[in-house]
């Protein structure tokens, strides 16, 4: 396969604004062109749009309003990991030689229809994500004797780190007490332990080695990809204290990259709810079963931004179709040593974990500089 990397990125600040999805997509693309002065519209062979929005043929629309006439133009949707799926699709076009450069733009509005899984009738009336997350939390806490005070540390850390992210939805600092005293959405989860659906956009340019060297002096390479879908229904999960699809996707991505978990310098995890962070750390192999909180605690005590440097989904917000792209941009910036006050020390390898539908579907990417 041809070597594939990331040449450029664009971001739209996450908010609760009432903006058309087409506008969000366009803003992300404008930002990308501004960040990459050598890029011309003729360089772009493909335009992929990642969103859960119900509008049709958004990729041709984005192409027209951006003045691009691509060979390839279509949408990619897979709920919360639409963004990373779109990146993998773009990678495939470039690695196969069908395209030299593919623009991926993801956008979502705060009122995204992607939060509710209408097909999954086995959930009965419990269709909102808070219910699967409560089941996960209850199961994980009971199996590994984890306390509410422990899980609150995930939100504490990620809200604190989001203060250094200028594109984050929230920039407030919360104490552990604030988190534990925030509104109980269910017995297991408090409001400040949940990510919030928001408005946002993110764009990224996936290019061949030849093209990427024309466009940037700081190329970032995609060296590992792992994806796994175990089902579409939450109740098909046999375990609620671990995330099977994430474990398989991470193993495949790390194998492809010939990388051990301990070699990872910076990681973006899909912390849709606080319990997802220790579970994801265990899925990646950075901690043994039930020990994910050890890494969260180490990050807090050392003030190390290694895990979810931009504040994760809990701190930065969760515009579904843009999330996986924004996570990838963060790791890109980290590996380019361009993450300002969020910068971790001299990173060489980073990982993105983006999942959907109660972790029945996961994508993991490994990036290197």
């Amino acid at each position, binding site marked *: 396969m041809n070597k594939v990397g990331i040449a450029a990125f664009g971001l739209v600040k996450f908010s609760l604004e009432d903006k058309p999805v087409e506008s969000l997509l366009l803003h992300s693309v404008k930002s990308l062109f501004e960040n990459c002065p050598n890029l011309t519209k003729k360089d772009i062979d493909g335009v992929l749009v990642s969103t859960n929005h119900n509008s049709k043929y958004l990729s041709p629309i984005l192409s027209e309003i951006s003045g691009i006439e691509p060979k390839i133009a279509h949408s990619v949707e897979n709920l919360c990991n639409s963004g990373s799926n779109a990146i993998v699709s773009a990678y495939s076009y470039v690695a196969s030689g069908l395209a030299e450069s593919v623009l991926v733009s993801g956008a979502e509005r705060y009122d995204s229809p992607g939060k509710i899984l209408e097909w999954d*009738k*086995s*959930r*009965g*009336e*419990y*269709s909102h994500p808070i*219910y699967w997350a*409560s*089941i996960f*939390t*209850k*199961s994980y806490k009971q199996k590994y004797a984890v306390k509410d005070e422990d899980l609150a540390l995930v939100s504490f850390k990620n809200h604190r780190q989001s203060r250094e992210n200028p594109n984050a939805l929230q920039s407030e600092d919360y104490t552990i007490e604030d988190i534990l005293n925030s509104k109980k*959405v*269910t*017995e*297991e989860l408090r409001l400040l332990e949940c990510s919030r659906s928001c408005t946002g956009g993110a764009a990224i340019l996936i290019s061949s080695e030849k093209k990427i060297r024309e466009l940037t002096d700081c190329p970032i390479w995609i060296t590992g990809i792992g994806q796994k879908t175990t089902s579409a*229904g*939450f*109740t*098909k999960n046999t375990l*609620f204290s671990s995330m099977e699809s994430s474990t398989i996707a991470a193993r495949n991505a790390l194998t492809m990259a010939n990388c051990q978990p301990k070699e990872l310098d910076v990681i973006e995890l899909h912390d849709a709810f606080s319990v997802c962070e220790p579970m994801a750390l265990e899925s990646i192999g950075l901690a043994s079963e039930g020990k994910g909180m050890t890494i969260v605690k180490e990050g807090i005590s050392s003030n190390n931004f290694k895990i979810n440097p931009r504040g994760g989904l809990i701190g930065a917000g969760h515009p579904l179709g843009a999330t996986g792209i924004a996570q990838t941009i963060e790791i890109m910036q980290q590996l380019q040593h361009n993450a300002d006050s969020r910068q971790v020390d001299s990173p060489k390898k980073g990982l993105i974990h983006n999942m959907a539908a109660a972790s029945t579907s996961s994508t993991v990417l490994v990036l290197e500089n």
Partner: protein
Amino acid sequence: MNIDKELQKGHFVIGKCTKCGKKVWPPMDFCDECFGEVIMEDGPQTGRITEFAKKENEYFCIIEMTEEIRIMGKLLSGTPKNNQLVKITQCGIVENNYFFEFSLLESANM
């Protein structure tokens, strides 16, 4: 195959493959194992709690009826425990959402 019509009548049905006999949930036209034709049959009325959580004063549970069939619903009364036996007390469709309600068949001290 229209599970909705049966559920609207409060009747819990599942799919069964006419070729390999596998129980199929949610019922679809063909078996996910062998693509054999699926017909509807009466579903089991009992299952065991595999996990649960609580919102305000209400417990919601996942119950396993067979290896292939798990559903999520409300426990009408009592305090649940994993592996407890429950029965479906009511099911149906409200505002386009399925709903299932369970009651305990065993005490929590089993």
